[in-house]
C-alpha cells in the first residue's frame, strides 16, 4: 500500500509528524485557509500544546489529524505521519471513511472535546458508550468489556462506577461528564490523546482536577497528549512543547520554556503580555490592538502584519516568512529573526 512505509531511524522517538499541512474550505465567498502550513511533531509520551485564538486554525488542525474535517473542508497538501513500531502511515492519504483510518481513530488516536454534553450520546448510558469502543477495538468478549469499562471509570476517579455505568450523561455533573469522556477515550490504550479545550467549560477547581488526572493517566498509559487551548495557564501547567498558531499558521514553535522565557515572534511576545497574571498586578494591560482577521482569501503576507508594531514596510506585507529554526529546537516565522 502507498500509505505505509518502513519506519526510519529518527522516527523511533517520534509518534506523530505533521508536515506543512494545509486544510482549505472552498466556500461560495472564497477559499477559507483555516490551516495554511502547519508543522510540528509529537514525541512518544510527550505533551504538545497548540495555543491560538478563535479562528487560528487550532481545532481544524486536530480535525485534520483525526480526518474528521467537516465539509467542505479538505486537506490540500502536507503529510501527517503516524509512526507505529514497525511502519509509518500517512494519515492524509487515507480515505476519511475507510477501514484504515477507522482502525486508527479511537484506537491509536483518541480525542476529547470541550463540551462533553455535545459529544456524548444523550440516549445511551455511560457504560454503553464506553463499551462500544472496547468491543470495536479491543475484545469481543462482553464480560471482559464490562470489566474494562468499570476499571476505566474508577481510574478516572468516578466514585461508585457500578452505579454510574448505568446512568445517562445528563445525570452527571460537568466535571464527571468530562471524566467519563476521558474514560471512553482511554479505554483502548491510545498512543495519542488529542484534547481540544478539555477544561474550558469547567470551573477552576474542577479544571485543576482534570489536568491533574490527564497527567497521571498519561504516565500510566505511556501516551502522548496534544492539548489545544487558548489558555496560556494550561500550557504552562502541562506542556513540554508549544506551537503558537495565528491565522492558520504556526508562527512559533519550541519548548515551553523557550516560549515563555524567550518568545521571539511579536505575536507570542504580545500575547504573553496581554494576559493578566495572578500575583503580578499591573496598572494596565498591554492589549494587542485590532481584531483577529478571518483567513478568507488571505493576501500573501504575514498574518500578523496588521496588528504588529514592528512590521517592516516592503517585507512583511509582501511575502509569507518561512518557519525557521533560529535556535536549537526553537522555530519562528518572522522576518525580524530570519531572512527567509
Amino acid at each position, binding site marked *: 500500500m502507498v500509505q505505509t512505509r518502513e519506519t526510519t531511524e529518527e522516527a523511533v522517538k517520534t509518534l506523530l509528524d505533521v508536515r506543512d499541512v494545509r486544510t482549505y474550505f472552498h466556500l461560495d465567498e472564497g477559499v477559507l485557509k483555516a490551516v495554511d502550513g502547519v508543522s510540528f511533531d509529537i514525541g512518544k509520551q510527550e505533551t504538545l500544546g497548540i495555543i491560538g*485564538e*478563535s479562528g487560528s486554525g487550532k481545532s481544524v488542525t486536530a480535525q485534520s489529524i483525526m480526518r474528521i474535517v467537516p465539509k467542505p473542508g479538505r486537506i490540500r497538501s502536507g503529510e501527517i505521519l503516524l509512526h507505529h513500531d514497525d511502519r509509518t502511515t500517512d494519515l492524509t492519504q487515507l480515505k476519511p471513511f475507510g477501514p484504515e483510518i477507522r482502525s486508527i481513530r479511537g484506537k491509536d488516536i483518541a480525542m476529547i472535546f470541550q463540551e462533553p454534553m455535545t459529544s456524548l450520546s444523550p440516549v445511551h448510558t455511560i457504560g454503553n458508550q464506553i463499551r462500544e469502543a472496547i468491543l470495536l477495538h479491543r475484545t469481543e468478549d462482553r464480560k471482559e468489556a464490562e470489566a474494562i469499562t468499570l476499571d476505566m471509570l474508577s481510574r478516572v476517579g468516578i466514585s461508585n462506577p457500578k452505579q454510574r455505568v448505568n446512568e445517562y450523561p445528563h445525570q452527571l*455533573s*460537568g*466535571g*464527571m461528564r468530562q471524566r467519563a469522556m476521558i474514560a471512553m477515550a482511554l479505554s483502548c490504550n491510545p498512543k495519542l490523546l488529542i484534547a481540544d479545550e478539555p477544561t474550558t467549560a469547567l*470551573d*477552576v*477547581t*474542577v*479544571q*485543576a*482536577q482534570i*489536568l*491533574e488526572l490527564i497527567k497521571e493517566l498519561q504516565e500510566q498509559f505511556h501516551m502522548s497528549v496534544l492539548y489545544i487551548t*487558548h*489558555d*496560556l*495557564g*494550561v500550557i*504552562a*501547567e502541562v506542556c513540554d512543547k508549544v506551537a503558537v498558531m495565528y491565522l492558520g499558521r504556526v508562527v512559533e514553535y519550541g519548548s*515551553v*520554556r523557550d516560549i*515563555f*522565557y524567550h518568545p521571539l515572534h511579536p505575536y507570542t511576545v*504580545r*500575547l504573553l503580555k*496581554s*494576559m*493578566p*497574571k*495572578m*500575583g*503580578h*498586578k*499591573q496598572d*494596565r*494591560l*498591554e*492589549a*494587542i*490592538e485590532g*481584531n*483577529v482577521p478571518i483567513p478568507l482569501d488571505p493576501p500573501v503576507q504575514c498574518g500578523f502584519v496588521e496588528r504588529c508594531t514592528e512590521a517592516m514596510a516592503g517585507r512583511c506585507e509582501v511575502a509569507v516568512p518561512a518557519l525557521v529554526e533560529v535556535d536549537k529546537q526553537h522555530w519562528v516565522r518572522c522576518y525580524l529573526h530570519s531572512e527567509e
Partner: protein
Amino acid sequence: MPEATPLLRVEHLKKYFPIEKGFLRRVAGHVKAVDDVSFFLDEGETLGLVGESGSGKTTVGRCVLRAIEPTEGKIELRLDDRTTDLMALERKELRPLRRNAQMIFQDPYSSLDPRMTVLDIISEPIKVHRMASGAELEDRVKHLMEVVGLEVKYLRRYPHAFSGGQRQRIGIARALATNPKLIVADEPVSALDVSIQAQILNLLQDLQNEFGLTYLFIAHDLGVVEHIANRVAVMYVGRLVELAPTEELYANPRHPYTEALLSAVPKTEPDEERERIVLKGEIANPAHPPSGCYFHPRCNYAQDRCREETPLWREVSPGHFAACHFSEELELRGVGEITTPPAT
C-alpha cells in the same frame, strides 16, 4: 466627608426559586440561589464577585437591578444625596431610576438583537428614557461609539458584521447610553479571546476613570478580577464566604474556600512552583445544601462544629469579612505562599 454613604448598599438579599412538583405544582422546596448576601459599593470603585458556576453570582447581579425579583432584602441606591430602597418601589416607580444602573452581558453574540442596527441598539435606552431625539440622538450615539472605540461609519451596520470584541463594545456603549452610575458587568470578557480581553478590560478602566463609574464585576477568572477590582467578594452556594480589599484577599485569605480557589488557578509560567489544594467532591446542590457551613464536606480543615453550626458573617480585620468558624485561627496561604516564582 462626603464618603459617608456608599452608592449601593445591599442587605440580607435573598432569592429563593420554588421547586414545583406534581400535577398541582405544589411547592416542594426552594433553591436558595442567593441566601442572605450583604455588601456595599462605594462610588467609583469596582467590586469583583467571584464564584464557581451555580454559586449564585449572576443571580445577585440581576437582583441588584431588580431584573429578577428578589425574595427579600434591601437594595439602597444613593442618587443625588438621596437614598432610595429599590425594593420598596413598585415596578412602575422603578422605571425612571433604571437609567442609573445598567448591565453588560457575557455573551456578545446572544445579547444583541440581530435585526437591529448599531444605531437602534445604542439609541434604544436613550429613547426609552426620553433623553434625546432626532439629530441630537444620532449625535449622542456617534459620540458613544467614539467613546468605546467603534468607528462611526458603522452606525447602520448589524451585529453580525462585527467581531466578538467589537460586539462587546456595542454592548458597553448601550449600557453607557443613559449616563448610569452603576454598571453590573456579568462576565464581560470571558467569551472573548485573550488578546481582545485585554482591550475590553482597558476600555472598562478608562470609562471608569472618565465617567466615575461604579462596577459590580462578576467573573470566575481570578486573574482578571485581581486586575480590575478594588475589593473582591467570594460566593459559595448562594452565600458570601469572604470579602476583602483585593490585595488583602489574595495575600491573606481567611476562608478555606478562597485558599483552594486561589491554589487552583493554573500557573502563569512553567517554572513557577505551585502547591495545589485539591478539593474533594463538587459544589453543593443549593436545593439540598449540607448542614452547618455549606463548605464543610469539601473543607480540609472541617471540624464537628462546622457540620452543625452555620458560621457568622463577620469582620475579622478592618474591611475584611469572612464566614468561617476558624477564620482567626487558621493559617491559610495566599498567592505569595502558594506560588514560588522561579529564581531569575
